[in-house]
């Protein structure tokens, strides 16, 4: 019987670049920016890192294939470097690789770094790219907003919600995230917005308007992980540990079997249940203090609150409008501004979420620091489309608690 990852691995240091339209930077500049913060935080030398994982999703966009771009950017000393890609959940995959390496004893100290340089496409939104020889011949000509927008149609139909009520809750989500991003200097978008701005914005993919969609940015984030024992030996107090790390991947059931109704993420429900079990959480609504979800679109965040078993099924609209997930609510969601304000440099996003939880756990989140220091923080990193995706969930807490 597997014992899981709980408390086996500690986060020694983390770093996160400024996210945004970094017109003057290459991907390696961003990697160095995130890494320098992390290594200073960890208080170790570069040559103490024994293995590394690089997350980048659209390698043809900038960084290139393989682990080489990371090894070259940091001049790593010929250690194992693995490049991972798992759609938009790639960042958490790199983290998982490093954490498992430490947990297995294969490495004492490991590095996970995610990076994406998206702003060299010449247009807004994610780049158009190939989907595989056969997929391209039968998948619809869909965009990310177009595929996620369909959640709204199915969710409304299933729960008998009025389009305007759902739209208003979605708008509340975006307004809340911009309020939070306003207090985060590393965010791409730091402006506050109003409900009216969201509701009156041009349509991208019905019913998603411009402000229902996250931005597209350049950025990098990284983590250095080790065992709790080594962390202690390096003088770390209040050790931040990984409580759970779960990944669930669609097997085609949602896409091809009529048991899925299109209104939720089957993967998120599986991964969150497993993560709660691994972390020892049985009442997520009461026990979790902080959530960073994959808010690529406002509607994604809304339905995810139910898939994480925090809001009751059909109850997310009420929770959102009641301010349950606001900065001063019971469980702040996207306290850092989320994908909404950071944008979504694909490989970096999952790691950026963990970075915020890590800061909050240590009371280092500046003007957006929670009054009550959180006990459990959850990150939810999603990739793909609602009908076919990968979902990565991590639970972060203090070692031994």
């Amino acid at each position, binding site marked *: 019987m597997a014992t899981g990852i709980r408390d086996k691995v500690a986060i020694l240091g983390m770093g996160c670049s400024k996210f945004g339209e970094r017109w003057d930077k290459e991907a390696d500049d961003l990697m160095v920016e995130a890494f320098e913060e992390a290594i200073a935080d960890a208080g170790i030398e570069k040559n103490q890192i024994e293995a590394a994982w690089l997350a980048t999703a659209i390698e043809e966009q900038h960084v290139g294939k393989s682990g080489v771009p990371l090894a070259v950017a940091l001049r790593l000393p010929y250690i194992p470097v693995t490049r991972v890609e798992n759609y938009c959940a790639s960042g958490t995959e790199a983290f998982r690789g490093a954490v498992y390496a430490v947990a297995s004893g294969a490495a004492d100290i490991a590095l996970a770094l995610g990076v994406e340089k998206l702003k060299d*496409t*010449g*247009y807004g*939104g994610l780049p*158009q*790219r*190939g989907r595989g*020889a*056969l997929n391209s*011949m*039968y*998948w*619809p*000509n*869909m*965009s990310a*907003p*177009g*595929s996620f*927008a*369909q*959640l709204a*149609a*199915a969710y*409304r*139909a299933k729960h008998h919600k009025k389009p305007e009520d759902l739209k208003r809750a979605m708008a509340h989500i975006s307004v809340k995230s911009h309020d939070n991003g306003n207090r985060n200097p590393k965010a791409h978008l730091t402006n506050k917005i109003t409900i009216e701005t969201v509701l009156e914005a*041009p*349509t*991208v*993919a*019905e019913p*998603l308007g411009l402000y229902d969609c996250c931005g597209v940015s350049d950025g990098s984030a990284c983590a250095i992980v080790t065992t709790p024992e080594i962390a202690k030996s390096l003088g770390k107090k209040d050790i931040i540990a990984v409580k759970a790390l779960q990944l669930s991947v669609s097997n*085609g*059931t949602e*896409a*091809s*079997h*009529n*048991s899925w*109704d*299109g209104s939720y993420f089957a993967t998120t429900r599986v991964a969150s249940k497993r993560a709660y079990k691994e972390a020892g959480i049985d009442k997520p609504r009461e026990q979790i203090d902080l959530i960073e979800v994959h808010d690529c679109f406002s509607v994604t965040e809304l339905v995810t609150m139910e898939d994480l078993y925090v809001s009751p099924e059909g109850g997310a609209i009420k929770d959102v409008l009641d301010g349950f997930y606001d900065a001063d609510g019971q469980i702040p969601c996207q306290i850092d501004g989320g994908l909404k304000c950071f944008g979504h440099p694909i490989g970096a996003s999952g790691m950026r979420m963990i970075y915020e939880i890590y800061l909050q756990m240590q009371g280092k989140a500046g003007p957006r620091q929670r009054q009550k220091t959180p006990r459990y923080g959850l990150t939810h990193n999603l990739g793909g*489309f609602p*009908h076919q995706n990968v979902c990565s969930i991590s639970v972060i807490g203090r070692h031994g608690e």
Partner: protein
Amino acid sequence: MAEEKDVGILAYGAYLPRLRLARKAVAETNAWFNPGLKGLAKGERTMCNWDEDPVTMAVEAARDCLSGRDRGAIASLSFASTTLPFEDRLNAGIVLEALNLAPSVNAQDLTASQRAATSGLVAALQMARGGAGPILMVASEKRRTKSASPLELQTGDGAAALLVGTGPAVAKLVAHASRTVDFVDHYRGEGFEFDYTWEERWIRDEGYNKIVPAALADLFKATDVKPADIAHFAMPCVLPRVAAGIAKKAGMPDTAVRDNLHAVCGETGAAHPLVMLVDALERAKPGDKILVVGFGQGCDALLFEATEHLPKLAPRLGVKGYLARRKEETNYGKFLAFNDLVAIERGMRADVDKQTPLSSLYRNRRMLTGFIGGQCRKCGTLQFPKSKVCVNPNCNAFHSQDDHPFADTPAKVQSYTADRLTYSPDPPHYYGMIVFEQGGRVMIDFTDADAATVDVAAPMRMMFRIKEYDPQRGFTRYFWKAAPAARQGTT
């Protein structure tokens, strides 16, 4: 002659695109250049959606023709068009795969003349008389015309299909006659995009008025039927009063002259004799004599007699049904853009390389062209695509699936969007998850969709359409799309 009575039309079908371009919109834009266009500004013409071409229309007309009929017996397929999307690739082969006809079916393209369909029909009837039937004769046309040309206003896009053979015919062949004359009223040379046309008065006087009467004289010599007995005279001609004049001169009743559908459709090129024939069959009573003429470097004339089987034919849309499935388009700019007659800014998202991996297309042609999925022998679950492992989470059996066709299965929308970000020649792009009535589902492109017809639970019908056109390599790739079915009548 006794032999000829043994063959005829076993079934008919048609397809006309849903979009109807108001001619007024064209004339208003172009009359500054050619004021004469104002005289052609009445009515509307059929107009292909951006994802339709002669192949997709041929498939739909054939499906209409084969409504309620087993396709297994078909022995041969002929596809007539002067606007085939491929100059070297059997276009009929695409139609064959889309209809899931057996590889043993002989298929051929007939082209290079406006009477390709009627000549093909004569040949098909002769072959069928020799025992080679049933033969599916499909004609389809989407003529490419210059902006501000009269032809742009005179033509329409459309297709028709006839199943011919021995057995219970809805209309039996009575007689036929053909003439071949190298009369060049218009032509399109190799490598040229557009037709070059000579003077209308000469075409009328030296062409129609001399060539057609000669063929009709031959035809009436070969039968006891008299011109006065003709109930339906179906002869396409865009020139005014020519068909009526020929009918009168030959001694046919004025009432026999069938409307050339100019007001509602326009002339569908090589397909038009068959479109008009189908229109006539839809109006005919048993015993009616129907004379159809195809003109182009000579002419073909075929005389049919409707039988008692005609009213008993299974329901289909035909010309009437597809004329009723209509959406007016008053934006001439859209017509120009759909037909690549204007350099439109398509945006960077249109830049994506659309190369088709031919080996993969071939390997998956049953799925992609035939829309064949799978059914699990163990649990019965229908699924698309067909896969090695059953998708039913309570089954997951390996190697358990038989072919299952989905093209004719009704479906409903589970979720959808109208996407303004992704590139589409006709934004917003509609797509979504559709669920088939007997099981199975697919996330798929929609076509002929708009806010008024698409919603959760809206009924959908699969249609064969262009998935991508690769402008770098001239390759058209096809797949199936879901179209709103609510207003589509019987099929």
